[in-house]
């Protein structure tokens, strides 16, 4: 195995798992929206906004790749490869779990709106709580990227 292979494994996990997390998250919210529309179709705008929230983690995964892209060269060292792999793993784990959990928070909010409760604003605030950890992971990727020589 070459260093660049290990580094790309990290990129694979980072982009892939954050994308998977977002896909699951938006599916959870999408399903909840369809269910809620049977009760209250008038609030589709609210459902759509909340449904889109878990989609960001997938973008963070891609951004992480972008931040590390310049280090992915055939002659990279093992140290650099390990850093890229580790950075990828951090964002992959945080992105995957936070997107799914954020989707669940949003889905509950959507169900609440469907049932006639005015919880749109509060759901938006609560829904970004899990996302912070994906953001912190992204910041860590950025900082790791800065330290790779």
């Amino acid at each position, binding site marked *: 195995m070459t260093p660049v292979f290990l580094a790309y494994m990290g990129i694979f996990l980072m982009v892939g798992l954050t994308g998977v997390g977002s896909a699951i998250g938006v599916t959870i919210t999408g399903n909840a929206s369809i269910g809620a529309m049977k009760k209250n179709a008038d609030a589709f705008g609210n459902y759509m906004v909340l449904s889109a929230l878990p989609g960001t983690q997938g973008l963070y995964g891609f951004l992480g790749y972008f931040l590390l892209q310049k280090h992915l060269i055939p002659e990279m060292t093992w140290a650099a490869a390990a850093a890229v792999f580790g950075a990828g793993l951090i964002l992959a784990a945080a992105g995957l779990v936070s997107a799914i959990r954020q989707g669940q928070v949003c889905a509950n909010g959507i169900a609440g709106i469907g049932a006639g409760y005015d919880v749109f604003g509060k759901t938006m605030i609560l829904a970004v709580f899990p996302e912070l950890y994906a953001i*912190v992971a992204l910041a860590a990727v950025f900082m790791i990227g800065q330290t790779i020589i």
Partner: protein
Amino acid sequence: MILKMKKYTFLVYHKQYTDFLEKIRELGLLHIVERGKGTPDSDALMEKMQFAARIKNVIKQLGMYVPKETKIVERVAAEADVNILYKTETLLAEKDALELKYVSVEKERERMEVWGEFDFSRIEMLKNAGFELNFYSCALRNFNQEWETLYNAFEISTIGSTIYFVTVTLPGVKIEMDADSVRLGDATALQLENELIEIQTKITETKNAISQVAIEEISTLDALQVSNFEDIDYDKVVLNTETHADNRVMLLEGWCPEESEVQLNEYLEQSDVYYEVSVPTEDDKIPIKLKNNKFAKLFEPIGEMYDLPNYYELDLTPFFAPFYLLFFGLCLGDSAYGLLFLIIAIVLRIKAKPAMKPLLNLIIWLGSSTVVMGFISGTFLGFSLIDAKIEWLEKFKGIMLDSNKLFYTSLILGVIQIIYGIFVKAFGIVRRYGWAASLSTWGWLFLLVGVGGTYAVSEYGSLNADLAKYLYYGFGGIGLLLVFILNDIKRNPLINVGAGLWDTYNMATGLLGDTLSYVRLFALGICGSVMGFVFNDLAFKMSGDTPVVSTIIMLVIMLIGHGINIFMSTLGAFVHPMRLTFVEFYKNAGFEGGGKKFRPFARYQKNESFL
């Protein structure tokens, strides 16, 4: 700012009560106090609420029957006419019934189609002549030729693999065959086809009649809805009235803003109503009416999405508004997107209804902020301004922030907002409880601003080491004294030390987490910029070299890509600054919340709030 309120208590003779309530509603200045645990229910109130749902449903359905590009007749003073509601409901029910009938006749026609055209009188004649006719269907392969001789089976039609046939037998003949018996309907396929045409005509006529009502009578139904809403409000006020002296004296309580009490008092002085005015106490649930300048007012709906302040604390809207504006711009982080919002909002504002203008004004502010912050973070439509080789841009590059600077700027902005929040908290405590209660908060400000500021200046600026030492001692000493000894001047100093230690633990862990949370400003800003850059890159690389076609493909990719990016980035730029405001800033500013909005008993006004 939260408007000061006065509590009014009225004692009204029961015969004057209706007139009194009518006048109070006309004035629209009084928020009625709810008795006990909210407004009690009554059958009449429930009926009116159900009636409101009926009207809403009819108005919604009528909306679908307004032909495109047809203007609805808007009557300025439309009268509430309940007959229009009944008429519309009847028409809608007729239409539904006709549509159901159409479906069932259509099914019957399909069923009868296989028997072709025939005369029912001929069947009757055969029956009268002593024959029995039975109709059957079965799979073609199951049809037994013997049935033709045994039961006089005649094939009528064969569709696909199913054969339809009729048997003509004498009475008493027992028919035993592996086929499904079919009941013949009352009409042939052709007769049913004609019936379908008739039903369709009636459906069209009914729909036209509904459209006519939709165009001409929606104002009437709106007026009916308004009248019903006002009745509901009125009933609620009556239900919140206490009766005394064998229902002869009515007692009602309400809140009136101090700035409007002259108007209310003028009426009360002229009337025979006995009333008392008092100032609110800590036990009262006082409604909240905010009054801010034009700029801060735009952010009130955003603040209300979380919670309203309670009566005794500060309204934080004017304090968070500039930060929200700044953070939105930083999170969206692309001048071109900001410019787009700005232009769209300005154009729409020209012909916008008054209710929409606050929203458009807010978008103008947010767009302007994005233009500025996008320029500072060096992004225009996904292109990096920092890397651009444009002569006139060179002189601005000094103020532009690359990703590294943006990262630290986000954290610094966080520190600034948190410290600002603690200042607001200290100011709020002084205003509410006096200086003595705020000493601990001021102590933290001495430590954070004084000691932290001295460290920052001595590290990154030029500060004499001796002076720095004295400043550390001065700020640190005062800060520690206030935090650990004087945090409650009426309490035992030893307990104060313990409370100070607990406060220190909370402050240290809280501040670290809060500051780190602001890293989202960097992450969202850079995410939008990078996605924009990637879409541009895709557009340029995938469009090929064919003249004209390449340009079109490039523009299509950019349009779709930036469209998605604008949606996702705007969503993030709207939500994440909200979280920073309501969690990090509100917490450090000591926000308690729990306020209930001031809703005066007044003539009904359509709620056109934009959030």
